[in-house]
């Protein structure tokens, strides 16, 4: 067992040495794999961040409750307090009919026309903000129905359309990323396969001699598999570097933009799990590509 591990360690370092001996070719392969892996993982981070935006977006799932005429200031305040006590509600703002009128005047520019009215036609409004984890279409719909049941509520309104649309879009993007990741993963396998195919053919004579002195296919395969694994791993690392660099470059302008909108939103990089998946995927795909290539060509190379 110990000698087995030792032998693997030797092959590992031998393969590392082989890669170092052809730095240009190795770096080319690593770069191509890096770019192929960076694309889906970069998009993944982007989607993940957008998801964060939509969740933290102030007022994404704002529900407006238009109260019945004659509820009065006191009644409205009492109702606001009651709603504040609900588990899925983060905050409730009260807007009196007078405030509503002032805002309408300011926004609509119909000031003069409004002056002609003898009394304020606008109802009192409660603006309900759900908690962050209730801020998704299903929970919002449920909260909306609860609020509708309340006596003093005349009309409860939620602009779900854009939330739903964003959700659908994100879902679509997610699926798109999986398809893209699958295709680019396949590309990595093919790239690695082609690289290893050339390496195998380049060492044809050596393989023939090894077969003649009693080397097994497993023995011949081993350094190629390590080469594939190492290059894939390095490609994963390159992808990580690419994505992290791009994110670092974007952080500053995005934070500025966010502060303009008084949002607490900030960009997060690849987390530990995503990093592990990225490196693991690189290594496994590299190994797989070389495994396929070596197995295909090893049989053809027989001593003559």
């Amino acid at each position, binding site marked *: 067992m110990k*000698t087995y591990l030792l*032998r693997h360690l030797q092959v590992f370092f031998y393969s590392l040495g082989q890669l170092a001996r052809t730095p240009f070719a190795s770096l080319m392969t690593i770069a191509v794999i890096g770019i192929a892996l960076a694309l889906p993982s970069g998009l993944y981070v982007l989607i993940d961040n957008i998801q964060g935006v939509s969740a933290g977006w102030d007022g994404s799932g704002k529900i407006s409750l238009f109260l019945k005429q004659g509820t009065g200031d006191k009644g409205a305040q009492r109702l606001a307090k009651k709603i504040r006590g609900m588990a899925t509600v983060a905050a409730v703002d009260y807007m009196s009919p007078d405030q509503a009128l002032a805002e309408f005047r300011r926004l609509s520019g119909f000031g003069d026309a409004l002056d002609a009215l003898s009394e304020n036609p606008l109802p009192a409004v409660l603006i309900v903000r759900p908690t962050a984890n209730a801020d998704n279409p299903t929970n919002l719909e449920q909260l909306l129905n609860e609020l509708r049941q309340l006596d003093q509520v005349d009309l409860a309104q939620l602009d779900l359309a854009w939330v739903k649309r964003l959700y659908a879009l994100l879902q679509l993007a997610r699926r798109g990323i999986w398809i893209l990741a699958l295709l680019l993963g396949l590309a990595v396998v093919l790239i690695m396969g082609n690289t290893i195919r050339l390496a195998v053919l380049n060492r044809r*004579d*050596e393989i*023939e*001699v*090894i*077969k*003649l*002195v*009693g*080397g*097994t*296919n497993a*023995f011949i395969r081993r350094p190629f598999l390590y080469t594939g694994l190492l290059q894939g791993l390095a490609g994963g690392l390159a992808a990580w570097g690419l994505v992290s660099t791009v994110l670092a470059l974007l952080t500053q302008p995005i934070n500025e933009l966010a502060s303009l909108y008084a949002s607490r939103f900030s960009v997060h990089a690849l987390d530990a799990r995503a990093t592990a998946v990225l490196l693991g995927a690189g290594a496994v795909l590299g190994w797989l590509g070389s495994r396929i290539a070596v197995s295909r060509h090893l049989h053809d190379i*027989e*001593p*003559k």
Partner: protein
Amino acid sequence: MISFSNVTKRYPGGHEAVKNINFDLAREEMAFLTGHSGAGKSTLLKLITLIERPTRGQAIVNNKNLARLTRRQIPYFRRDVGIVFQDYKLLYDRTAFDNVALPLVVAGVPHREIARRVRAALDKVGLLHKERAYPITLSGGEQQRIGIARAVVNKPPVLLADEPTGNLDEALSDEIMDLFHAFNQVGVTVLIATHDQRQVRRLQKRVLELRQGEMVYDSGTKDI
């Protein structure tokens, strides 16, 4: 040790390189395989090492029926058969030491053991001082001797050689044949394909002669 009965090899294209060969080579025996160019000497050796498979007939080497060996078993079988090639088949990007070490490395022999046995083999062929040299910097005779060291380094019970003195001068040829003879005297079964009648006469060993793929002469199990 090597036993052929009615072995025929037909190459793709239809040419029968060896036809209906019968012979037995006993354990610890030494023999020369002679014949004109194209007689089938190399083909016969390739059949023994499973580089080629017989079209017909049965071949038993080292108690193994070659027809029954699977692809997976071939490497382990070959570890017991040392082969010396006319064109040496050395790896030119590795030192003499690494070339000789190859059969031990593929067999998973421990590191320290490898160094000891490689030096012993190089010493036997008189090239211990060249262990760090690359084959390209060695003469033809020296390369041939590296090839011989590689063939015997893991002490195989059978040693085959295809024209091992093909392009060497007489003195060097004598030296190399004496080396094979020495291995034979310590118990290795040796079969050498050669044109070199001078060596055949000099060493007085059993002779098998091929002509147009057929075994036309066998001096018998006794030395001539």
